[in-house]
């Protein structure tokens, strides 16, 4: 390997997940190892479930069904994680304008750049697949070793398992690369840059929806049933389940057909990605260089909406534009909304497959939960990104134009959070439920949702003394990684209880009035509490680090405080 190749490979690999998107001045190697450790921890937790095969009294048929479902779960999870990684590294997958402008004046061959990029992509894919399967990849193949099979049968199962996982990951990764690369070839550079963000978002949504909503048919009967054949044509995770069985020596016609689809799908995806990559070196790089520095802009009249006085309008519009245009903030918010969507889809699955207690056209728990969960995650997500500054050094303009009382800035921040996080959820809920539910039930639900939104906005803004996106951020304050799971469980339990209460209240006007009154009182209390807390404080632009010394306020016995 030449020195040039090694330097470029390292640079491309560490830039796969764009750090500007995740954290300012983050430590690349540390961040990637943290992500890998997180995936490995997930893998370890899942691998513990293999113990049930050792201590079960279930029949061999029941065990087989369970094992097939587990194998499908592992394949689908690997594909989902690889897909999300591909979405995260969307902008760094192909050489961009920065690469060209920095590297073109240097004496580097295009082929060196090309192979370094390919090697970086392959390494990133391999690392993702290995991380997410680090424990399960050793534990689960044990279940599939044929009875009486010796060491070599075990080795074959292990090899089949890993080959399937790599193939499934490569299929999804290459498919996304191919879609992105071919779009770049078909569209003009300007249109591609504009549509690329939508493609990225669409890929993110599709991956989540397919993962959470695909039917559980990973049984011998399910895979053979005539009614499922059309569905199986469109569900790649089942193709790779078939591939695993075929590689493991089970040549049942159903598996052979699915395995064939997997091989063809992988070949098409890999071919498409290779073609897109080759073309990108011949055409996209040239287009990127020839692109004018300033592209003509469009008039954005729709953004000139007034939100009260001029200060509120300025801060709401600034926040809205930041969320919509900053990739870093958008991706973090998408992460929160993704978790919300996952919980939402888990509830909606019962409605889609018809095993919910109520049909979709009646007031039902899944749809009520879906709107409440999305509201919660939207508020928490937007509030979280409010803390992350954009172009921190540009905040001087807010300082030199601070010609209003601080309280007015805090009110503007409240409105910004409500407008960005709550209004879209309320509008989407109204648009979804109005055509299918009685008007009174929809209006009632929206009223309750509005009151809940007000409470949550105040709770999350308690002690917030900043203008969104303008204050320095000290990372590492919260042990969110550890607590996130606990919060989600508690939130889901509370939401479930709240929604069941709401469902009862929507059928009885008196109960509804009481329910609404309680929420309104809570909203007024939360609003007052937040405003009292904000009084007397200035707008904060720098986050003070925790003091090096903390007094314990210990006193001698018998000495009164003060």
């Amino acid at each position, binding site marked *: 390997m030449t020195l040039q190749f090694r330097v470029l490979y390292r640079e491309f690999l560490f830039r796969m997940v764009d750090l500007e998107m995740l954290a300012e001045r983050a430590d690349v190697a540390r961040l990637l190892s943290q992500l890998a450790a997180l995936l490995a921890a997930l893998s370890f937790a899942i691998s513990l479930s293999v113990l049930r095969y050792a201590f079960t009294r279930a029949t061999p048929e029941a065990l087989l069904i369970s094992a097939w479902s587990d194998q499908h779960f592992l394949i689908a999870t690997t594909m989902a994680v690889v897909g999300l990684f591909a979405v995260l590294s969307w902008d760094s997958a192909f050489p961009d304008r920065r690469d060209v402008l920095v590297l073109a004046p240097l004496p580097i061959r295009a082929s060196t750049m090309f192979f370094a990029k390919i090697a970086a992509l392959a390494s990133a894919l391999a690392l993702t697949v290995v991380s997410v399967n680090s424990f399960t990849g050793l534990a689960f193949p044990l279940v599939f070793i044929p009875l009486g099979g010796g060491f070599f049968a075990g080795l074959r199962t292990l090899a089949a398992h890993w080959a399937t996982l790599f193939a499934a990951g490569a299929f999804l990764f290459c498919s996304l690369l191919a879609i992105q690369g071919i779009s770049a070839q078909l569209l003009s550079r300007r249109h591609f840059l504009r549509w690329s963000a939508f493609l990225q978002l669409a890929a993110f949504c599709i991956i989540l929806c397919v993962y959470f909503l695909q039917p559980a048919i990973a049984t011998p009967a399910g895979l053979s049933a005539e009614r499922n054949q059309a569905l199986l044509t469109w569900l790649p995770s089942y193709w790779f389940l078939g591939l695993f069985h075929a590689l493991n020596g089970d040549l049942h016609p159903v598996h052979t057909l699915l395995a064939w689809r997997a091989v063809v799908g992988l070949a098409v995806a890999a071919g498409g990605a290779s073609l897109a990559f080759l073309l990108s070196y011949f055409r996209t790089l040239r287009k990127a260089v020839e692109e004018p*520095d300033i592209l003509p*802009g469009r008039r954005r009249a729709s953004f000139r909406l007034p939100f009260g006085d*001029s200060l509120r309008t300025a801060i709401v*519009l600034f926040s809205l*534009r*930041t969320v919509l245009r900053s990739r870093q903030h958008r991706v973090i918010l998408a992460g929160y909304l993704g978790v919300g969507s996952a919980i939402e889809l888990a509830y909606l699955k019962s409605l889609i497959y018809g095993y919910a207690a109520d049909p979709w056209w009646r007031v039902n728990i899944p749809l009520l939960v879906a709107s409440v969960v999305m509201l919660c995650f939207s508020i928490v997500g937007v509030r979280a990104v409010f803390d992350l500054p954009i*172009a921190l050094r540009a905040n001087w303009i807010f300082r030199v*134009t601070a*010609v*209003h009382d601080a309280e007015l800035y805090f009110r503007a921040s409240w409105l910004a959070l409500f407008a960005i996080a709550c209004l879209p959820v309320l509008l989407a809920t109204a648009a979804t439920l109005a055509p299918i539910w009685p008007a009174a039930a929809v209006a009632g639900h929206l009223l309750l949702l509005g009151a809940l939104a007000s409470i949550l906005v105040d709770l999350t803004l308690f002690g917030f003394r900043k203008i969104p996106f303008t204050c320095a951020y000290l990372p590492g304050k919260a042990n969110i990684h550890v607590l996130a799971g606990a919060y989600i469980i508690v939130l889901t339990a509370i939401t479930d209880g709240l929604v069941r209460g709401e469902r009862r209240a929507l059928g009885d006007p008196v109960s509804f009035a009481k329910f609404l009154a309680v929420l309104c009182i809570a909203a007024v209390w939360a609003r007052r509490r937040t405003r009292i807390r904000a009084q007397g404080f200035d707008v904060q632009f720098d986050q003070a680090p925790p003091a090096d010394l903390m007094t314990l306020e210990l006193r001698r016995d018998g000495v009164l405080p003060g």
Partner: protein
Amino acid sequence: MLELRGVTKLFSAIAAVDHVSFQAAAGEVTGYLGPNGSGKSTTMKMITGLMEPTSGEILFNGEPVQRDLIGYKRRMGYVPEEPHLYLHLTGSEYLEMVSQLRGLPARAAATRIHGLLLLFGLHGDRHVAISSYSKGMRQKVLLSAALMHNPDLVLLDEPFSGLDVATGLVLRNLIEELASRGKTVLFSSHELETVERVCQRVVILHRGKIVADDSIANLRGLMALPTLEHIFTQLAVEQDTAAISREIADLIQS
């Protein structure tokens, strides 16, 4: 009139600005000069209220600015040394946001923004994100944002940075025009020729301390030196610039 009285700024017990006192009169352009690291931009940041002095006092029209900081900020326009802007906004959106933050009436703000964009030659690119702007275009946005509210005190820290020749000439005349209309202009720059043409008086800072505060004509006479560049070199430049240039050329040839 802007007045600084014994203003000091310490960073970890090191004085970046050390007992600086001077006055900038209304209707005059005062040059504020010094080599890199002399404390010019720190002084500017203290005058704008971005940074608080460790000691000393800043007064505007005889009133300490801290007494009514909000009122003072309403009357001040500032062009910072570095063009730190919100790059995800368009030029038009940025100026609109600044006008809203300053509480300007919407109609008047729209008229002024439209006019400033036209006069600075940015109108055609007003809907383009600032991230696509050249350095000069960003500087024009900063100038527009600093002037749109008709400030009484104009603080310009390297305002010519990145500007083309034509816009540089416009700005030079504009600075003189603003002063002739009674505004207080404090102008910091490394372009000594421009300073010499535009400023009535100069304050020269070296290692955080004032080493000269007088009209340019007086300084020329007192020091018996022909140009501001000679005066500045004698007072604030410690290095043998010709020798350093030779050493650099020798190094890259070695």
